[in-house]
């Protein structure tokens, strides 16, 4: 585990910074949806959601500092939820 992750003060500042970034991205998502961009709205919203997911996984879940097996299991879990969501959205978007 990197030495920097052992320092509570530094770690705490990193968490607060990540949380602030999440709030900024949340604001960006909300603001974006008041502008009509057609299909681009959903794509941009999902891109922002992806960025938020990365922040949570890398900072809050500390996956870079975890054991390779745990990283693999976490990655598999996220891929699985992505597959399920894709199927659900595909079904909804193609329903006439």
């Amino acid at each position, binding site marked *: 585990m990197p030495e920097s992750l052992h320092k509570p003060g530094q770690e705490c500042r990193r968490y607060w910074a990540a949380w602030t970034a999440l709030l900024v991205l949340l604001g960006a*998502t909300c603001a974006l949806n008041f502008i009509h961009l057609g299909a681009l709205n959903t794509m941009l919203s999902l891109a922002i959601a992806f960025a938020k997911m990365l922040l949570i996984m890398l900072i809050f879940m500390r996956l870079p500092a975890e054991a390779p097996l745990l990283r693999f299991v976490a990655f598999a879990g996220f891929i699985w939820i992505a597959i399920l969501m894709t199927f659900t959205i595909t079904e*909804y978007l193609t329903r006439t």
Partner: protein
Amino acid sequence: LLMALAVSRMRAGDTVGAVRRMAATASLGVLFCAIHFIEYAHDSFEHLLPTTSFAAADFHYPGARLFFFLYFGMTGFHVLHVLIGVVVITILAVIYRKGPASRHRHTVLEIAGLYWHFVDVVWVYLYPLFYLVSVRGHA
């Protein structure tokens, strides 16, 4: 944030600090669920539950019933997972209230934290997919 801080405090050996942050996490989880249940009650009054009383006539686009089915299904399962997280965090907070921090306690709390953040990630996707589409519709 609070759950990550709780795990961080436990790692630093501060059990009291960790338990306080766990209690705050669980409280916010309960608040989230309460807001959701109020929302569901409001939806029920407006006949938005995708049952026989669904107010289909109010919607002029196809798939409205399917949207509300997915909305209640996906947010409902999410709330269920938040409730499971709240129960787990509360039980751990009660157990960890007394006694020193240990490697075992840190590992258990870390796993609970991973679960909590996973549920968080699901919400990150559910929010724009279900709540912001209506904003677009009215903007």
